[in-house]
């Protein structure tokens, strides 16, 4: 049987690994699919290719389909996030000048305590900061805003600006930005080229943040349920393969190829392993759960993730938070996830939303097949988000 070719847009990042592995390791082929992976030059073009039918599926920033459902950003085609591709994986980095000032103030670069890092950074940059993020609607922007609000950084003049990730290190070197929040490999590239130092992993702000989703047009999901199921199964199996420590070397080699990320495998391995070199002087830090593709029901599209994102965006853009939350809840399709992946034995939580921020250690919860262990999902300031009570 000849495989069905499915056009899928993605941005060359470490967290596109499940799509790349689905195609290269044979999970797509096993489903009779051939993924025609189209590397996009920008997130807006990923969104537009998906919305206007150039591709049928996409690797997308989790807040993008939510923003579209809220009527923000100009393109409002109905998009469904059918599963989460990756959880966590962002890093916050600063220029060498700020690194030196932080060091002079006695800051330890523990790469873990977001409250302490916020205090130290605010003290070192009293005249304000310009921070680069990949896209206005991104987990990067959400984590930054959250961190800034809950630390003395809120007292500073902070300008958050969009900079395409491949240009982030360059913008930092040129002084266009003082800091960034970006996904791997771009944080490690900034360290490797000696222009920046890493301050925090995204997981230090929210320990289980949905980063990228597998997105399709809602209309396509309705007319092509079988194709969708094959795609979802292939990507889910690829995520499980990536979560196996034995796969890591092979995955880093694969992603490093010129066709994919074209970055040395040693640099890619840092994001995959969570063992990051944080300073150009070579110091490393280990971050458990730095980037998840599978563990702890990582691929489950929690409706509470969508409503958290929606309420945060609504508060910043002046939209009604309740309307925003109910529009967003329909975008993260835990219903389709259950329908399509039940047969695989995927971890299937009993509920489709949860109280975000309430788990400070791994916790067993009810699932359709018994129990599933959910990893910690804490916010660094201990706040709780209860989607049913907001």
């Amino acid at each position, binding site marked *: 049987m000849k495989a069905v070719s499915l056009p899928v847009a993605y941005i060359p990042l470490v967290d596109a690994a499940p799509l790349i592995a689905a195609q290269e390791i044979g999970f797509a082929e096993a489903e009779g699919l051939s993924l025609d992976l189209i590397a996009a*030059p920008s997130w807006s073009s990923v969104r537009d290719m998906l919305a206007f039918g150039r591709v049928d599926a996409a690797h997308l920033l989790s807040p993008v389909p939510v923003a579209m459902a809220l009527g923000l*950003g*100009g393109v409002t085609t109905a998009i469904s996030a059918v599963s989460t591709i990756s959880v966590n994986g962002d890093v916050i980095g600063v220029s060498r000048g700020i690194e030196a000032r932080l060091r002079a103030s006695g800051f330890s670069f523990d790469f873990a305590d977001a409250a302490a890092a916020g205090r130290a950074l605010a003290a070192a940059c009293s005249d304000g900061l310009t921070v680069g993020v990949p896209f206005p*609607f991104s987990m990067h922007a959400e984590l930054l805003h959250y961190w800034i609000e809950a630390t003395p950084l809120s007292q500073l003049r902070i300008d958050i*600006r*969009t900079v395409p990730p491949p240009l982030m290190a360059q913008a930092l070197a040129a002084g266009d930005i003082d800091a960034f929040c970006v996904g791997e490999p771009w944080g490690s590239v900034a360290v490797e080229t000696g222009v920046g130092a890493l301050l925090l992993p995204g997981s230090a702000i929210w320990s289980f943040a949905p980063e990228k989703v597998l997105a399709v047009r809602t209309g396509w999901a309705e007319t092509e349920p079988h194709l969708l199921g094959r795609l979802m199964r292939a990507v889910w199996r690829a995520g499980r393969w990536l979560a196996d420590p034995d796969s890591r070397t092979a995955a880093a080699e694969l992603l490093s190829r010129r066709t994919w990320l074209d970055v040395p495998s040693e640099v890619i391995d840092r994001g995959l392993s969570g063992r990051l070199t944080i300073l150009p002087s070579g110091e490393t830090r280990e971050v458990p759960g730095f980037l998840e593709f599978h563990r702890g029901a990582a691929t489950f599209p929690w409706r509470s993730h969508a409503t958290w994102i929606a309420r945060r965006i609504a508060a910043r853009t*002046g939209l009604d938070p309740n309307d925003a939350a109910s529009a967003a809840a329909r975008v993260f399709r835990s219903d389709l996830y259950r329908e399509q992946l039940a047969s695989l034995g995927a971890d299937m939580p009993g509920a489709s939303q949860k109280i975000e921020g309430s788990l400070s250690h791994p916790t067993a919860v009810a699932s359709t097949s018994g129990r599933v262990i959910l990893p910690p999902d804490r916010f660094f300031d201990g706040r709780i988000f209860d989607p049913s009570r907001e």
Partner: protein
Amino acid sequence: MTAPLTIVIVEEDRDRAGAIVDALKGTVACEVHVIGNTTGLARKIAAHQPDVVLIDIDNPTRDMLEELTLASGPLDRPVAMFVSSAAGGLARAAIEAGVSAYVVDGLRPERLKPVMDAAIARFQIMRQMRTELAETRRALEERKVIDRAKGLLMKARGIGEDEAYALLRRTAMDQGRRVAEVAEALVTAAGLLG
């Protein structure tokens, strides 16, 4: 009589920008500004108060323009990509041609259409030229590799050029691969073996 449209083009390459300006000016009454340097892009665009912003889809700095579409963005008039449903068919055509357009809300479809038609036609020509150039380069690269592979075979096996090429072609056919791929594998292997 309506005021001429203000159009901003984001394009680093002067020749390409010039060609787009000419195409637009030949079609509609408009004032066109070109922005080449992308530092502080959104603010530079806002300074011109444009009705339409055109940018190459392959330009990675395009995400910087998304800030224009935010309520807190630098333009006081909201901007969207093809808000009007009448322009819906244009969106797909534009994406295929490789141009994205940001349009100020409320611009009438009949004023937008000629601009987009001209832009789409021009971007299509430029895209075609780029594809052809890339094809030519690739063909040239492949020919170089095939020539090197032929040379290696002639030396190793003591055969003539025609025979070396026939061998490459036969191997490619047997393996269901392209001649250039077989040649590249041979050149790589020879490099490894010294």
